[in-house]
């Protein structure tokens, strides 16, 4: 595949190895659309930061090619790529004031004094830090430092901004606030952003598309809703959001669905065939906790299974119910705290039910 004019960045068969023995990134092919907010999500060691560093120019691809605006940039040093970058620990220059930090990229571009001042002030206003120009980074709070780092990466108006887990050091509330702020800046400026994080809620909140990394390979590249509702494989289903897993063997299949006999004696259920096929194949059934109902009335659910209530956790808006189903005692069901919801006791036997569309048959680990 080759990038079209709409792709600001194209990775073509990129591989990276640090030691010559193992590949950290295995055959990466990825297009970033102009104006897109693309997030690379994955556990630590999955290769996502390495991809970002190759794009920024701090690491050299072992094989393959990276194109920026259609031009190969493998041999372009970082300072000639014109890519803005926000680092994990902000990387503000401690010996310069906020204003000097922001002026730095403009000064190395030899802009006039008046223009620099104008742009610095505009950038500071954009992150709501007007009047902080004379402070030192050490005098700012974590959130303010973060905003300065974002402003500094944007002040020279790059087409592409990279962010390497920029919110990792902030507390939860501030992190959520900053997520919206960065999202709005992206929408207002229309720059392309490539964002790296291991926090899935961050990825779902901000992105147009999310690339889920594991073991140096993109497991799935999709918009957040698709990623959550239609995971391609067991890793993505388990990594994004909460997920219930049941293992079984395919006993019969048609074009769309299959029948699976559960391990642990839970009976046979129907599931959507996604990433498993062939009678006799072992499969992982994946279901979201909110798509499972307790004691469904009549034929409301296409599949039912008996379960035993193990634990009830009251969480205000919903009651988190842990049940054991077919030998799996970690099966979670969310009961919304709505008017007239079912009242359960720990230790009672119940029936759980779900629609075939909500149960996806995915790849299973080898036993």
């Amino acid at each position, binding site marked *: 595949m080759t990038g079209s004019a709409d792709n600001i960045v194209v990775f073509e068969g990129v591989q990276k190895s640090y030691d010559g023995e193992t590949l950290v990134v295995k055959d990466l092919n990825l297009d970033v659309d102009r104006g897109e907010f693309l997030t690379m999500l994955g556990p630590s060691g999955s290769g996502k930061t390495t991809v970002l560093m190759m794009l*920024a*120019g*701090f690491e050299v691809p072992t094989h393959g090619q990276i194109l920026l605006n259609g031009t190969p940039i493998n041999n372009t*040093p*970082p*300072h*000639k*790529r*014109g*890519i*803005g*970058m926000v*680092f*994990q*620990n902000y*990387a*503000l*220059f*401690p*010996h310069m004031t906020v204003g000097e930090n922001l002026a*730095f*990229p403009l000064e*190395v*571009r030899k802009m006039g004094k008046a223009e620099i001042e104008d742009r610095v002030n505009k950038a500071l206003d954009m992150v709501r830090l007007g009047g902080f120009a004379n402070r030192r980074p050490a005098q700012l709070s974590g959130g303010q430092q973060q905003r300065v780092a974002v402003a*500094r*990466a944007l002040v*020279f108006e790059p087409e592409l901004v*990279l962010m390497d887990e920029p919110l990792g050091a902030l507390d939860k509330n501030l992190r959520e606030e900053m997520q919206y702020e960065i999202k709005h800046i992206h929408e207002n400026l229309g720059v392309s952003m490539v964002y790296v994080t291991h926090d899935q809620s961050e990825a779902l909140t901000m992105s147009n598309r999310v690339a889920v990394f594991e073991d140096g390979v993109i497991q799935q590249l999709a918009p957040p809703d698709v990623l959550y509702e239609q995971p391609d494989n067991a890793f993505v289903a388990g990594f994004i959001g909460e997920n219930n897993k049941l293992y079984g063997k395919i006993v019969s299949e048609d074009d769309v669905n299959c029948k699976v006999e559960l391990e642990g004696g839970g009976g046979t259920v129907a599931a959507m065939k996604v990433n498993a096929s062939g009678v006799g194949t072992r499969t992982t059934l994946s279901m979201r906790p909110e798509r499972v109902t307790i004691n469904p009335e009549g034929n409301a659910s296409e599949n039912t299974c008996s379960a035993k209530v193990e634990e009830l956790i009251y969480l205000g808006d919903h009651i988190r119910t842990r049940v054991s189903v077919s030998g799996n005692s970690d099966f979670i069901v969310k009961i919304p705290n709505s008017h007239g919801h079912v009242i359960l006791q720990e230790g009672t036997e119940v029936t759980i039910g779900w629609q075939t569309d909500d149960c996806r048959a995915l790849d299973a680990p080898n036993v």
Partner: protein
Amino acid sequence: MAIATDSSQPLTTADGTPLRQSLRRAERLNKLRAFGLVAPLFLFILVFFVFPIAKLASVSVDNSIVPEILTNTVEAIQDWDGTDLPPEPVWKAMAADLVEGKKNRNIAKVGKRLNFEKPGFRRLLIKSARKADKLEAPYKESLIKANKKWADPEFWRVLQRESGDYTFSYILRAVDMTYSEEGSVTMVDDKNAVYLDIFGRTLFISAQVTLTCLLLGFPIAYLLSTLPAKTGNMLMIFVLLPFWISLLVRTTAWIVLLQDQGVINSALIGIGVINEPLELIRNRVGVVVAMTHILLPFMILPLYSVMKGINPSLMRAAKSMGANPAIAFWRVYTPLTVPGIGAGGLLVFIISIGYYITPALVGGPKDIMASQLIDIQMNQQLNWNMASAIGVVLLAITLVLFAIYNRLVGIDRMKMG
């Protein structure tokens, strides 16, 4: 504040004891314990550092030998107005002191002291003391008859000036100043001026050594701080290796390397680069090379510890903003190493100022440094007062430089590691 406290009433604890007193009592034990731990060090510093420096300072101004031996004269001469020659009682007192000095065999000592102020004083006193028994009233005529120099009022004026328990002559001499005949402070004439030149040279050599250490040490410290821990620690051992070898051995090793028939000259002549051996020793080159080698670790270690603390993503950030590596290094990295440059520079400079063995062994006569002057005064001239005075001036120069450094860079910005 919602609760209004009466400021005239001090806060108390529940049982009514004042809060301050109660707090002091509660923390007393901890303070005592802390003091107990630092007490050995405190005593050590007091006995081996503060006391010697105080002693040094007092020896440099000590003049007690004059009032001790010439007791009567010193007392009598106070009333003299300094014009012409002193009145008869002073001559009488001097005659008595000479008799006493001859008996106690200590007239030569005070003679040596006063000779420092006015050459010829020692001979005058010793010769006169020999004839002390024959002196009789009127003593003025009798003394002048014994030695004509007594008629020179200059000797009396010097004696009157130096009759106190303290003198500033040594310290003045250590900065090339002296008393004129009228008793005011002036610079000594050029042919006798040595000390300021040597202090200036000491500072200049120290600055040269500091600069060389910085130029050589900076890349090494940078390399050490960027290498992976295993290789870095290995190289660090090489940096520290010289500390395991005696200073004397390291300095003599440089003699072996640098002398005319030494390793370097032989090698250069052998490969035909030069025909005559280069003069590498007994001159400034030898001093700077050997001192740099010995002091280099003192520059590398503070620099290394500062560089280790610099976040590597700062350089990446600078590059991502469009700065080429040279600009990123100069505008981002270098300013952050200033605390290390300051600490290392100050350390090397101050150690250099007091250096002795190395310049003595590899330096020539034009490379004598302040410490060698002290040595000459102590071991050759046997003038401990003068040696102390040079020491005091050296200490003062060091403190002034330290204060200037503090003003320019700030001692709180220094980082030793």
